[in-house]
Each structure stands twice: as C-alpha cells, then as structure tokens.
C-alpha cells in the first residue's frame, strides 16, 4: 500500500468506529459519511492516475453518495436522534 492509501484506510477505520459508536441514527450516518469519503479516496489513489482509475472512482463515488442520500432521507423520515432499536422493540411488543 502507498502512503495516501494508508491515510485513506485510517479514515475508513475512524469512520467505521464512529458509525458503530453512535447510538442515534444521525450520529451513525456521520460515521458512515466519513467512511465513504475514506473508501472512495482509497480507490482513487490505489492505482496510477489514468482514466480507468478515475472512471471507477467516479462510478463508485456516485453510487455511494446515492446510498448515503437515501440513508439521510430515511433518517429524516424517522426521528434520527433516537436510538434505532427502540421502534423495532416497540413494534415487537
């Protein structure tokens, strides 16, 4: 691994830890956004700067951004400041 990839991998691990540490939905989402930025950068610097690397990074970045936007919409539809288990437990009872 080259140095930029290692830095990006650290960002991925930080984002992953933040997403697991978060109790509320919005907190987890922030961790996931950090992780997403890290993974896309990791892919972008993984190979030599040529159209193949850029094309792949663009495709992966756009689809990941789409997933995160959808996650944001879902978080807005429910109360994103509440722990995410509560509603499911309520429904089960």
């Amino acid at each position, binding site marked *: 691994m080259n140095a930029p990839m290692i830095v990006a991998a650290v960002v991925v691990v930080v984002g992953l830890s933040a997403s697991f540490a978060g109790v509320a939905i919005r907190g987890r989402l922030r961790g996931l956004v950090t992780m997403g930025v890290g993974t896309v950068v990791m892919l972008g610097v993984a190979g030599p700067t040529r159209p193949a690397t850029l094309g792949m990074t663009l495709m992966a970045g756009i*689809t990941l951004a789409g997933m995160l936007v*959808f996650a944001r919409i879902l978080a807005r539809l429910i109360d994103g400041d509440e722990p*995410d288990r509560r509603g499911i437990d309520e429904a089960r009872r």
Partner: protein
Amino acid sequence: MSELSLAAGVLVLVVAGPLLGAVLAVADHGHASSRLVGLVTGLIASAVTVLSVTVAGSGTPLTLVLLAGPGLELTLVADGLAVAMVVMTTIVAIAVAGFATSEDRESPQARHPRFWPVWFALWSALHLLFLAGDLLTAYLMLEAIGVAGAALVSLDGRRHTLLAATRYLYAELVASMTVLAGIALIWHQTGSLRFAELGPELSAHPEGWLALGVVTAGLLLKLPLAPVHLWLPAAHAWAPSAVSPILSAVVVKSAFAVLIRLWFLASPGLVTRHGAQLLGSLGVVAIVWGSVVALRSAHLKQLIAYSTVSQLGFLMLLVPLMQAGSADAWRGGVLYAVAHALAKAALLMAAAVIAEDAERPDVEAVIGAVTRRPLAVFAIGVAALSLVGLPPSGGFVGKWYLLVASLRTGQWWWLPPILVGSLLTAGYLLKLLKRAFATDDLATSRPTASPVAGVGAAPEAAAEPADVGFDARGALALALALVTVVIGVRPAALLELIDIGAPLVTGGG
C-alpha cells in the same frame, strides 16, 4: 442472425427485460397492470429459458463484452453458477409477481406507486450481478440491490418498517464500503478487476490475502452470516408480503454468489485451509443460532427470517469442502442455494396468506389454517420437506452432496452440524405444521390479542372457516414449493448446468 449474436441478444435481454418493466411501470404511474406485469415477466422468462438452454447445450460459459471503456468495463459471463442463479431469481420473481398482482386485484389502491418500478429494478440488478464478469460491476449491483431492498422495506412508511429499512441500509452501507476498500486493495495490487484475471496476479502478491479478506468481510455482512446478521430479521419480517420472499430467497444469495466466485473461480490459490475452516465454523454458528432463535420465535415472519439466517450457514459449508478439493461441495452448495430460494419464497408467501387471513402476525395465526387455507398449508409442508432436507426435494439433493463431500474429503466434523441443523429445522417447521392441523377446539380457544395495535381476530371468525374462494396466492406458493420436488426427482439437468465452468469439476470430487 448468427447463433452467437442471438445468444448475445438474449443475454442482454435477460438484464434489460426487468429494466424495461421498471420503465413501463414508471410510465404507468407505478400502478403496473397485471397485463403489463405478465407481458414483461413472460419476456424475461423466455429470454432466461433460451439462455439456459443455449449454455446447457453448448456446455461452455457464454461471454459477452458490452462495454470496454476506461473504468467502465461491462462483461457478462453466463457460466453454470450465473445461469443457475438467474433461473432461480426468475422463477421466484415470477411467482412473487403473480402473488403481488393477485394482492393488487383484491386491494387495487393498496400498492405503493413506487413498488413496481423499484421491484423490477431490483430484479434487473440481481441478474446483472449474477452475470457480472468483473468485481466492480458486481459491487455496483450489490449497492443497487441494497438500496432497492431497503426502499421496498420502507414503502409502507410506518415507523417500525422505516427503522428496519434504516438498519438494513446502514448494514449495507458498512458492507459496501468494506467491499470497496478491498476492491481498492485488489486494484492496487493487480491493476484489474476482471474475475478471470484476478487469480495469478493476486496470488503472486504478498498482500493478496489482505485484499481478499477485506472483500470477504464486507460480503459476509451483506450475506449476512452470523454473528453479523442482526439487521436481517427485522428487515425481512417487517417487509411487505410481496417483498419478504425476494429478500429472503434471492437477495441473500447475491453476496453468496460473489463470494464463491471470488474465492474459487477468481483466486483459488489464495484460499487457505485455516480461512476456509473459519468460514465453515461461522456457518455452523449460523445454523445453530438461527435455528434456536427460530424455535423460540413467536412472530411468524421473524421465525422464517431466523430460518434464513440458519440456512445461510449450510451454504457456508461449501467453502471448507471446496478448499479440500471436492467438486461435490460446489454442486451441493449451489443446488442447495437454488432449492432454498424456492422453498423459502414459498414458505413466506404461504405465511403471508395465512397471517393476513387470521389478521395477526404471530405463529398462533397458523392454528387451524388447514381448514381455511389448505393450499397455503400444503405449500408450507412441501417447502418444509426441502428446507429440512428430506427426499424427494432439492434440499435433500443439496445436503446429500454436502454430506458426501464431507466424507470424501475426510472432514467428518461437518456431518453433525448438517444433521443437527436439519433436525432443528424440522423442529421449528413442525411447530407451524402442528398448529396448522390443530383441531377446531384449539382454534376456537386461541388467544385473540394481537401484538400489533389495531389488528386482531374475533373468536367466532377464527373458529369458522371463511369462504375465501380459490386461493390464488396459496396456489402460487404451492407451485413454487413443488418446483423443489421436481428438482429433487430430476436433479441431473440442474447439476449438469451447475458444472459448466465450475472449479474442480474435471479433477476433484
């Protein structure tokens, strides 16, 4: 038109057909008529039939390069694994489409206008994933499947379904990003993401195992394999009745197909004995954990969702047995995946009919169901035959091949989990069947309080068989379950298909 261009056209149609359905459903403002659904599913079924006959007839995988631009490559590879998965998806999707249109006829305004466009898009993404010839396309389709699946779960807009969809999507996001990090490592080491080219390059690189390990971790979360399965039961249990079957039967196989393609078709040299045994052990944990929770579950669809967690464990036993050089494990694992999809979809469709009829979502809804919904109960019985692994069923053939592979490779320690897991499966499915055949006395005395607010059945209504007319949805569930029996009686054609392009087929086993 030459034979090759006809096959290429069919291959494109297999992917584009469901996409056409999505476009037509959008044009129809989301309320896809049964005629439109029938037309599109008929078109896709024809294309899949021609594809499977072509590949089976030639005995070699069919490859088609659609796009070869920088970073935007798209190659479709129709080998035995891909075609078996596409056939499985198509059979389940057609049954679910029939189920959903039948629901639409009974309650025309109940269907969310985004259901059909998203549902067809999910179908298309599944086909493209199974046929993908490179890891990036497979990754993009895994993302599309995750978004479409979460969107379908969230459609009814109730708080608990939104929460279940959110947890599902968050797990998918973590898994996707982990897979993407692994793809970055592979790209860094090999400069290629085509499955056919990964093996030698990745095996030669000292960090190859790290890249493979990171991608595998992401795929296990997507699968999901215990103990990272916690998002699955809520998402599958709270999804609408026409969505749970496709999630529990087919969507869970998407990560499985990518995993075994990557491990055994792309980079077999990297798979170590310790790694394979670890995955097999996680499979055993899933078999026991999923079965025990299913046995204790009081919620009908949750019981079936935990059954899925357990059944995915059986699929993982393919990994250590393949690593030991058994072609029987490949045949057994892939065939079991197909049989499980058909039986699980049938089980969920039948359970939905019975729960809706009883107006309650718990297992007590099944009490006395044989008098009200005999076709649905029969479907549960036939599906149970395959899930438990009793002859004549596809589940039996799949488990038999796994047992034979365990003995031939000397890995006898996988026999007890297969046998105990099958007994536990029988335990929770017999719990349902026992209730279904319960006497009228028990049906009359069943509790009426519902775990879901506003839903409950009056005792009189529970005791008296309702005149429901012809149970079209129960019949569809039964037809789907009977396909597993057909596979059990005549497994040769499917096994020959699975062998096309499979690893170890000429030398192992």
